């Protein structure tokens, strides 16, 4: 079953002579539970594409369907709630809230939904992420790898169907990078989540189920990474 369906997606910034076509007529789909890596040069349109997949940026043309629902047919508020419940984001710079502890950062999206976090699931996540001992620490008291793990926890807490990650290992060393990717893959497998990840790291791309290459806003499906 296809979780993510993208059809005729385009995004143009600016107008007239200064117009930049960041994403050009992109169509693809991703089945449930698949781990997709997006690769490409800087400025090729990867981030623009990911923003639109997550409902953060409005496309100039085309549609994005997640679990059968047209993301951009929704109103702003409805889209926000949909994003909160169905999409988990992981940023390169972690973007944890500095005044919240690790645990509070992780449960934050659930609290935004005025729900009570599932304590058992939280414990499980903290265990999987290796952050049990650090649950009461502030982000400033953590290493980069720990911060990114906390950010992964935040992305997973609402059990979203889709996880979008923009170079989650960009600020990490190789050991931490491997750990984070292993965690993401384990989560994807365990909770049947679909992952779409931008990466520059060839080794990471090799571990993905499928690789999409972006070049000048055009997406090419490379299938499994081949050297």
């Amino acid at each position, binding site marked *: 079953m296809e979780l993510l369906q993208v059809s005729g997606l385009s995004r143009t910034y600016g107008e007239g002579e200064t117009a930049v076509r960041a994403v050009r007529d992109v169509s693809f789909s991703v089945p449930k539970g698949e781990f997709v890596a997006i690769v490409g040069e800087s400025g090729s349109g990867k*981030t623009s594409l*990911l*923003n639109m997949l*997550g409902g*953060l*940026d409005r496309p100039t043309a085309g549609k994005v369907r997640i679990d059968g629902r047209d993301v951009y047919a929704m109103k*702003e*508020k409805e889209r*926000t*709630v949909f*994003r*909160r*419940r169905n999409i988990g*984001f992981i*940023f*390169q*710079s972690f*973007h944890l*809230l*500095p*005044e*919240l*502890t690790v645990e*509070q950062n992780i*449960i*934050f*999206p659930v*609290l*935004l*939904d*005025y*729900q*009570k976090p599932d304590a058992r699931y939280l414990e499980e996540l903290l265990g999987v992420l290796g952050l049990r001992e650090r649950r*009461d620490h*502030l*982000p*400033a008291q953590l290493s980069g790898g720990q911060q990114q793990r906390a950010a992964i926890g*935040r992305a997973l807490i*609402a059990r979203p169907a889709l996880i979008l990650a*923009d170079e989650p290992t960009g600020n990490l060393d190789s050991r931490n990078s491997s750990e984070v990717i292993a965690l993401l893959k384990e989560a994807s497998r365990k909770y049947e989540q679909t992952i779409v990840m931008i990466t520059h790291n060839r080794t990471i791309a090799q571990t993905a189920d499928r690789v999409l290459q972006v070049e000048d806003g055009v997406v090419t499906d490379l299938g499994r990474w081949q050297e």
Partner: protein
Amino acid sequence: MRSYLGLVARSARARRGQNRLTVLCIALSVFLVTAIFTTADMGTRAELEYMKEKHGSWHLRLEGISGEEGAEIAARNDVTSVGWCQSFNLEAEDSCLVNGKRAALYGVDESYLVGLRSGLEEGAYPETDGEAVLSGNARLALGVEPGDTVLLETAAGTRELTVSGLGSDDREYFQGQNFLVGVYLTPSAFGALLTEIGVPVEPSCYVEFESPAAASRAEEALKSLYGLGKGDLAENTAVLGISGVSGSRSLNGSYQAAAVLFVLVLLAGVLMISGSLHTNVAQRTQYFGMLRCIGASRRQILRLVRLEALGWCRTAVPAGLVLGTAVSWMVCALLRGMVGNEFAHMPVFALSPVGLAAGAVVGTATVLLAARAPARRAAQVSPVVAVSGAVDEAPISRGISRLGTGGVERTLGIRHATASKKNWLLTTASFALSMLLLLAFSVALDFAREVLPTLCPWQPDVTLNGYGNARVLSPELGERLRELPGVKNVYGTSYRTNVPAVCSREGVSSVHLASCDRFLLECARDCVLEGDLSAVLGEGGGAMIVRTKDNPLQVGDTVCIGEREIPIVCAISSGVWDSRRCLFCSEETFQSLTGERDYSLMGLQVEQNVPEDLLERIGGMIGDDVILDDLRAENASDRTLFLGVQIMVYGFTALVALISLINIASNVTLSVTARRRQYGVMRAVGMDGSQLKRMVAAEACTSVISGLAAGCALGLPLSMFLHARLVTRYFGTPWRLPVAPLVVIALFDLLAVILAVHVPVKRLREMEITAVIGDL
């Protein structure tokens, strides 16, 4: 760019929009201080001129000084003028008559009447002893003009005097009344007359110095030089008081109150600037850290921040000074043109060195001082912190203890407001200060209301007063007066002084007794301070007192007059008669105590446009033993004065409130701007627009509520202190919770929150999430 300091100018250009709020805050603070101080300076100048006009320009009055000693004083370097004056029969007790009317006699030299008192209204000072100046009311009372002759009858016989001019040394006293006329003779004519009557000639010597300060300095020297006793030297309290050099004890309380207000206004300016600078630099910590990274030393960072602060001053201080001066000119013009009277001397287009200096010093000094602390903090930022890119705000050292499911956005909003203790403190203090000013100014208004008794509901426009408060005005006369066209209301009151009494309070052996008719009792209802008025009404038999610091009588005391015991059941804030030892009772009680029903005083309240002959018609209805006084001009003057005070007080309070509001709004905006990226992340992980709004609202509310709490905690005691100093001390009115200012503050709070939330949230919502967080 020749030096690294050139970065400041470039940075200012690049951050023009960001710096605009900071510059605005500094300019507004300078504006506030300049406007208030300039207007206060102009007001003081106007008041000084008015007081000189009303009470004369002399500074000290000396008794028991001989002519030679007077000449010696006049020769002093610090003395500009000396004049002489002695009066006789001011109370109209002796039979001095001018053209048959009661006369008060004065012996004055030209220097006193024309120079020190500016009292000549028409004509000239007498050239010979056969001439005299008559008070201005002589035209109405005697029908004379300068050049006419009048007959002066005294115990020494009758003499003819030529009226050389009209005028007096107390225009207000003679204006409008036709009971007593002032006759101003030359000192030689007056001396000869007194000698003939057998009254000693002892003129007072009035001295004007080059400045009030010089007068104050000379006081002790004159006392010792001429052996002057305690009562031999008196100050012109009004003139010296306005200049701030009076030794009068009663003025000291007012000076203290003015000093408190002065400091508050200065503090408000200082806090506003500090708050805005602190927020701005906190936001720029990363930028300074980056500079450290590329090799800037701590000292260089400090220099950069200071120079940047001075750059803000370059625009903000002159703008604040110009704006403050312009607004104070507008206020002065308004007061001079629309209110007049005391404000008629208001200089409109004058520059105030005090106002300009206060504004410039407050602006520049505060910016430099306020920039120092954040500059140090900026200099201490570790380059590593800058490289990490995680220095949007002050380092977080403490997390949130609990996040409930009820409203995480509210918890975060509160946290954002309180995260930087210093910032929170500055915002709270700035807001609390504006509350303090509002509460303090409201006391100033209470003071003005008390100082101007003509604002009482029973204030008469015309009074009829039996000579020596004799009870000679019948209730029937009241009925006839009420029927005159243009008369709105007539009331009457009887007064008996020094009635022997036995009082439950020690030391009171006699009381004054005053009756109040139905109208006066109705008016008393609005000024009850303690007790129950109902027991005073009709045949209730109770009495009320006016509460002042000098009145020994209190509610609960009983006074026995003859056989009758009268309980004091009520205290009011003001009354018609002298309040010391005075019992106010109903007409029925007064009658049963004294057996008298005629009044000592009748008050008439008239329409705005009354027939021209009204006073003549009233005069025709009363005997020669009744003093007719027209108080309309005085009332109008007091009402306009109060209007002027209201314009000033409310104007500046509104100004302070507005500036505080802008300050809060700008602080929240700056704080939101500083957390823009964080808010973007929150939106990305699912925070919707209304949650965002609630979060910012919680932040603004926290500042406002903490400001409100601090403002109440400090403002109410301050209001009590000022009230005790300015109002209770002199007028006895106790402090009451200032409900109206508090309601205004509450509404203002609401407005501050709405304004503080609306703009930044709108901006955040309009911005794409991807643009906010940048590197998603």
